[in-house]
């Protein structure tokens, strides 16, 4: 509607992304459905799959929040992606190397 013209008149930075209400609400509903889903699945016994399903849903939710709510999908600053990827990389480095150590020790 008038949003676009408003934006181009008043926003000094022309590349600014303004999220539409519709898409934000849609993402929000998907996030709530995922929350209900992950809570529901926890009551079903899937064995070791419970952990995998719960963490997969959590990661899906986190990706939605980062891409759409934090506007990373629309950013023009390429370094943002580098910061995010390196944060995730170093987190995995911390977790995998620590677990590689503790799971291969023979102490009790």
């Amino acid at each position, binding site marked *: 509607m008038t949003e676009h013209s408003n934006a181009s008149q008043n926003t000094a930075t022309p590349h600014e992304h303004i999220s539409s209400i519709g898409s934000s609400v849609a993402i929000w509903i998907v996030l709530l459905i995922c929350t209900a889903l992950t809570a529901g699945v*926890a*009551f*079903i016994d899937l064995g070791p799959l419970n952990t995998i399903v*719960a963490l997969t849903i959590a990661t899906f939710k986190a990706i939605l929040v980062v891409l759409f709510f934090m506007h990373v999908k629309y950013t023009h600053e390429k370094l943002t992606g580098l910061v995010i990827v390196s944060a995730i990389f170093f987190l995995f480095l911390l977790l995998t190397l620590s677990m590689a150590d503790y799971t291969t020790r023979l102490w009790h």
Partner: protein
Amino acid sequence: MATNEAAAIVPHEEPNPALLHHFVTEEQQKNAASLGMWLFLAQEVMFFGGMFCAYLVYRYKYFGDFGSASQTLNIWYGAINTAVLLCSSLTVVLAVRAAQLNKRKALTMWLVFTILLGLVFLGVKGIEYKEKFENHHVPGPSFAYHGTVPSHPDQQVNPRHAEIYFSLYFAMTGMHALHMIIGVGLFGTLAVWAWRGKYSANYYTPIENAGLYWHFVDIVWIYLFPLLYLIDRHR
């Protein structure tokens, strides 16, 4: 190149008062502020990452005890709080949008909604913590735990190991709650300034960066919820 850009914007428009002298364009200034915020969030990932790592190591080592202790948590408190946080993330998105569209009242309103949802989260957390105190599940001299290892009814849980679970529970949810309290304080300040008309489509960087912080705190909870409440329901 820098002079070209400056020449391109200066002649036909009033300079934006929010543009600081060491930046060439407003976009450059915004990108720098946003990048700084993302760097801060990257070190927050490492900060929480240390606690997640400790949780993984001890859950691996005391698998049965952690399973039993995790099953004492009420899944509904966690689920309701997840939903409350997701709602607050939506109100933050709408607040940023209102700022971009120069809607001062809407911006203030969405910030106030965000604060209220943050307080609801902290209230639910408070009820949960109160139950932990009543059940002697708070680590310390009064800690007491009786239970059996899931699917091994003959095996008693070592209370010291359950205490480690609850130490990590309080450390992780406590640090998360502290971040929430800081966020509520930030949005409180921003709401007052927004009401006074400090922010507009020309300048709303603090709203956007506080929003990034709030979404990050939301993501931490998105992972805390399954790890602490859900994955040990069944053993």
